[in-house]
């Protein structure tokens, strides 16, 4: 399985329209809904926000990874949004977030390949070079090429 199996071009938003945490969650969830990854967008959003309440998913360096494991998810998927202005995400380093990865995980899904992919993505985000390249990516193609590095 490749990460590109989870991240469809339609779920990438090169310039996020929203400027608030809550709104961005909705915007990206909307993209996932359009690809048919979600069965119930409202339920999924609620699970993402409740996870955010526990502790912010802003992991620093301008990256946030809101995620939800929910009955509202039909199949595992990733959405990616880039904010050109930066968003306050209560990140642990207090910096504004520019890159948002949203992870949708079904409550029940046979196998754990999708989880391993997400695990690899999480580990990859710690890599300075990877983050820098991602921040500079100007097109969906470039992002795709970067993402293709992640596989299991």
């Amino acid at each position, binding site marked *: 399985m490749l990460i590109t199996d989870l991240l469809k071009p339609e779920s990438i938003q090169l310039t996020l329209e929203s400027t608030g945490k809550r709104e961005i969650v909705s915007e990206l969830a909307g993209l996932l809904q359009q690809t048919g990854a979600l069965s119930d967008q409202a339920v999924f959003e609620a699970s993402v926000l409740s996870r955010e309440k526990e502790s912010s998913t802003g992991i620093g360096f301008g990256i946030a990874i809101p995620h*939800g494991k929910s009955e509202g998810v039909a199949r595992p998927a990733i959405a990616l949004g880039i904010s050109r202005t930066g968003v306050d995400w209560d990140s642990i380093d207090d910096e504004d977030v520019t890159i948002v990865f949203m992870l949708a995980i079904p409550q029940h899904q046979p196998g754990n390949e999708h989880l391993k992919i997400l695990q690899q993505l*999480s*580990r990859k985000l710690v890599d300075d070079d990877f983050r820098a390249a991602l921040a500079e990516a100007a097109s969906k193609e470039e992002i795709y090429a970067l993402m293709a590095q992640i596989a299991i």
Partner: protein
Amino acid sequence: MKLLGITACPTGIAHTYIAAEKLSRAAKELDVEIKVETQGSVGTENVLTDKDIAEADGIIIAADKGVDLSRFAGKAIYECGTKDAVKDPKRLIQLFLDGTVVAPQASKKLKSVEEAKQEIRGKQNLIYRHLMSGVSYMIPFVVVGGLLIALALAIGGEPTPTGLAIPENSFWMHISDIGGAAFTFMVPILAGFIAYSIADRPGIAPGMIAGFIAANGSFYDSSAGAGFIGGIVAGFLAGYLALWIKRWKVPKMVQPIMPILVIPIISTLLTGAVFIFVVGKPIASLMNGLTEFLNGMQGSSSILLALILGAMISFDMGGPVNKVAFLFGTSMIGAGNVAVMGAIAAAICTPPLGMGLATLLRKNLYNKEEKEAGKAALAMGLCGITEGAIPFAAGDPLRVIPSLMVGAMSGAVIAMLGGVGDSVPHGGPIVALLGAIDNVLMFIIAIVVGTFVTAFCVNFLKDLKQRKDNVSNQKQAARE
């Protein structure tokens, strides 16, 4: 340094792995080995083995949910959230590098006498260890000699104008002679085993022979021998010479005869020569002067001596200071002065007896463990083992040690003034049972007084502290 980590977050999707990755990278930068177990949605990966845990210097638990810590009993553990590991993993590792996070103390229970002694032994320097090795081999000879001579005098002695004397050719004269034979080994054995401790087997012959020369003034034109000081000098001289020769680089052919021939002969000759031509006489006159000075000590100066000896014996309960005083007393027995050892014999047993009595007098000041240790201390005190007080002194040195010293000093002074003599290098009531004590009544009085003084002092000080604690507790309670 080798660290272990466990990361876990509620959903186990992202933070578990980000935290793990952060820790691994930070460890690499700080040149620390780390293995991180991830407890995530995929299950537990990179599982820490028993071997990992055994080898680890510390464990970082970066988790936002419960992690079973039972595997890590007795290890240095730092617990935090995944957030902390993501945000500043280096700081977490630095905590271990700086020693800020340490393994929990096994428990605050009293150290046993053995443990405490072990700890002290670890800190002793080499010179002291060699000296004590020699002393420990010498003591049985002094005990046998002292006891047999004392017995012979007590049973077979007849009063003469100059004191008790054993009639020539009587049965008890032979017993006394056996004791005398034991005494003649005292200094050679001391020197021999100091040298043995330093240089191993090649040191024994030069050490013993040099010790024998040291003990016999006739070798160097002196009426008196160089005594135990001479023995110590001889032992160290022979030992270090032998050790030095042992390290010579010699052809392979010569090697087998080094320990049995070359080393003993050269070091014996050199040490013997040094004694005969250089240090023998000065040390002998020093020893002689010391003995005469002590024999001449009466009244106030003997009280001062008893005070010093009592303080030294009880100060570290079997440690170096104690042993110096003890060695001094032992050597004085060899020189015919049993009063010094008499004072020491009383001081030896008052610390454990006093602590034992203290736990009986004021039960509320001591916890269960201390009461148990108190009973053991009583038994050890009766047998003349000062170390019985160590568990108490280790737990509360500021209150216990001064009390022990005051008690031991009072005991020693009473024994000195009461004319108590002890002809074996050992203390406590048991020596009286062996018949080695002159003036048993005063000896018992000295011990009883010293014991009570110790117990009262220590209970007084502990009581003060308890009251102070109570007051501050009440204040605290009032404030809250």
